[in-house]
């Protein structure tokens, strides 16, 4: 187990390193460097046309020296990496703010939304999937399958719009966003948390439906495979009650894919949720990333990609460890 942990942690470190190089290189991609584009963006207005020529060049030069942009790429990377480790991602050109300020709250929101969606998905998918498999080829199973396909087929944003409209037309409430207006900039408190829960369920449903339907199918099919295995028959033959038997043996086996996909959930939600976030006006990272990319704000974009990459690596590492705790065979295979 210890060897397994060390191996996996080292692998995670290596992956993080690779991601960071990619993120760093992405920053270097556009013509010119950060200094020139920064200056162009911030100071390039007509205001400076007469008096600013000299000042512009000076500012650029100052920035270059600060950031070490005139040094070799390796040194630049090292300097950048040291700053990143200190959580100093630099400044966003678009927003004229420190990147941590732009991203901070939204990253937290994104993670909260991911957790909410996963909880929603599992709470629904696990019991329904088990039921569907145990009762397979009965009307109940067909019903679940049908509703599942509906859930898969309806686009998220359409479901979001429909929920918004229903809330607005019939209940006269606005269910967009993640917080009520009075809490948006308030510091964290119990009331704010409750307020968040009140808003979170809508995007959790919207984002979770397709995943729920998919997981029900995966769980049902895995479980059908497992239920036919000899060890299930053997457990039945020694008198284990049916429900206990199903939960203790095949369900635990069938849950493995749930755990192993845990790590990918964050990037999946991020890229899948941009439209929904726009429709439901969710203050998450999706729209920010989209805007950063459109505006060629590569410092912001690659910082976001880097943070998510690292979180994904951590998520995958955690799910690997969970899986190993769950399934003793994995430790051997490494």
């Amino acid at each position, binding site marked *: 187990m210890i060897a397994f942990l060390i191996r996996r942690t080292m692998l995670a470190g290596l992956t993080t390193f690779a991601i960071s190089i990619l993120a760093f290189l992405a920053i270097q991609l556009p013509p010119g460097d950060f200094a020139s584009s920064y200056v162009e963006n911030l100071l390039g207005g007509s205001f400076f046309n007469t008096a600013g020529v000299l000042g512009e060049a000076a500012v650029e030069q100052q920035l270059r020296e600060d950031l070490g942009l005139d040094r070799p790429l390796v040194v630049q990377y090292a300097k950048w990496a040291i700053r990143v480790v200190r959580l100093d991602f630099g400044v966003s050109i678009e927003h004229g703010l420190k990147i941590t300020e732009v991203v901070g709250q939204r990253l937290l929101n994104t993670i909260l939304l991911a957790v909410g969606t996963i909880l929603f998905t599992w709470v629904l998918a696990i019991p329904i999937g088990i039921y569907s498999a145990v009762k397979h080829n009965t009307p109940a199973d067909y019903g679940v399958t049908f509703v599942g396909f509906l859930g898969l087929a309806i686009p998220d944003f359409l479901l979001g719009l429909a929920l918004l409209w229903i809330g607005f037309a019939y209940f006269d409430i606005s269910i967009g966003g993640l917080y009520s207006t009075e809490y948006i900039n308030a510091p964290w408190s119990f009331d704010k948390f409750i307020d968040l829960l009140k808003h979170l369920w809508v995007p959790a449903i919207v984002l979770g439906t397709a995943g729920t339907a998919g997981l029900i199918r995966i769980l049902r099919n895995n479980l059908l495979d497992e239920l*036919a*295995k*000899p*060890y299930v*028959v*053997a*457990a*039945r*033959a*020694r*008198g*284990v*009650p*049916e429900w206990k038997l199903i939960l*203790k*043996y095949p369900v*635990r*086996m069938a849950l493995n894919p749930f755990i192993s996909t845990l790590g990918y959930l964050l990037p999946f939600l991020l890229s899948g949720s941009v439209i929904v976030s726009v429709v439901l006006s969710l203050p998450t990272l999706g729209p920010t990333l989209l805007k950063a990319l459109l505006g060629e704000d590569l410092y912001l974009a690659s910082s976001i990609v880097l943070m998510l990459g690292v979180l994904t690596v951590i998520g995958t590492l955690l799910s690997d460890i969970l899986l190993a705790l*769950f*399934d*003793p*065979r994995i430790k*051997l295979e490494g």
Partner: protein
Amino acid sequence: MTDTRDSALLSINGLKVHYPTDEGVVKALDGVSLDILPGQTLGVVGESGCGKSTIGRAILQILDKPGRVVDGEMMWNARESGGQTLDIAIQNPDGHEMRAMRGGDVAMVFQEPMTSFSPIHTIGNQMSEAILLHQDKTPAEAREWSIELMNMVGIPNAPQRFHEYSYQLSGGLRQRAMIAMAISCSPKLLIADEPTTALDVTTQAQILDLLRKLQEEQKMAIMLITHNLGVIAEMADAVVVMYLGKAVESGPVDDIFHRPKHPYSQGLLRSIPSVQAVGHEKLPSIAGSIPHPFNRPSGCTFGPRCPSFMPGACDASVPRYMTLDGTRQKVSCFLHHPPEEVEEVPSDD
């Protein structure tokens, strides 16, 4: 005949089990009858697909979906232990009686010792589970008893093995663990479904020795399901020969091996080298192949493959399964009972 049924531990009569599938109904058991006597080993033999495993599972009411008992009775004689005779065929599979019986009075050993253990639970976990379900023991006592059982079946380092997973054991040890688990609650009947088929020859012999030893110690009956007549010859007291969901012949092992009456039994016996064949003769095997489950021949189902097939008789009606005068064998064949006997209304004795 009536006297064996009265003294039988389990008496199965006219049992029918069907699997209704999309393509049609598989009549896996089509009126099978057999008796298992207390403390004896009954060998159940027949080609693959004849319904051997289905009988074993029907006794525990753990038929695979969509299998169903549609007719017949399975009388479990519990008088010895102070209970009443119980017809397993009409019990609710999820009911209290059946669950108490599974792993309690009747235990099962399977063909695949590897896949018959959960890969994610320790051997000890699964052994203790069986003990805790049927006996009034604490987990610590169950653990102690499991380790004692593992010693009993010849598993070395039992306390350590208790905490291991099935993949850490060899095939032979796994089957020993399976047997230890099966006997943990002192069953009266042990159903062993091809217990040695997946093992190499040496291990096979060891497992059979173990079963014999345990039977002597525990005084339990064994229903030994196999397609291997060599195993039957070595182990069984009595034999039932099955063909396509029916018993076609039964009797004491010596009588069946030396004086088989049914052409199918005769064919089976000729096809094994160790029992009768001399030298290196080519093994004769039974002509033809097993009919498709949905397409059973009319009359005697063995007819199309039978060397003594009698047109007009064998394909017209089904021969009765009855004791042959002057023997202890039951046979279902018109060579031994002329078809006239069948004209009578089959009595429901």
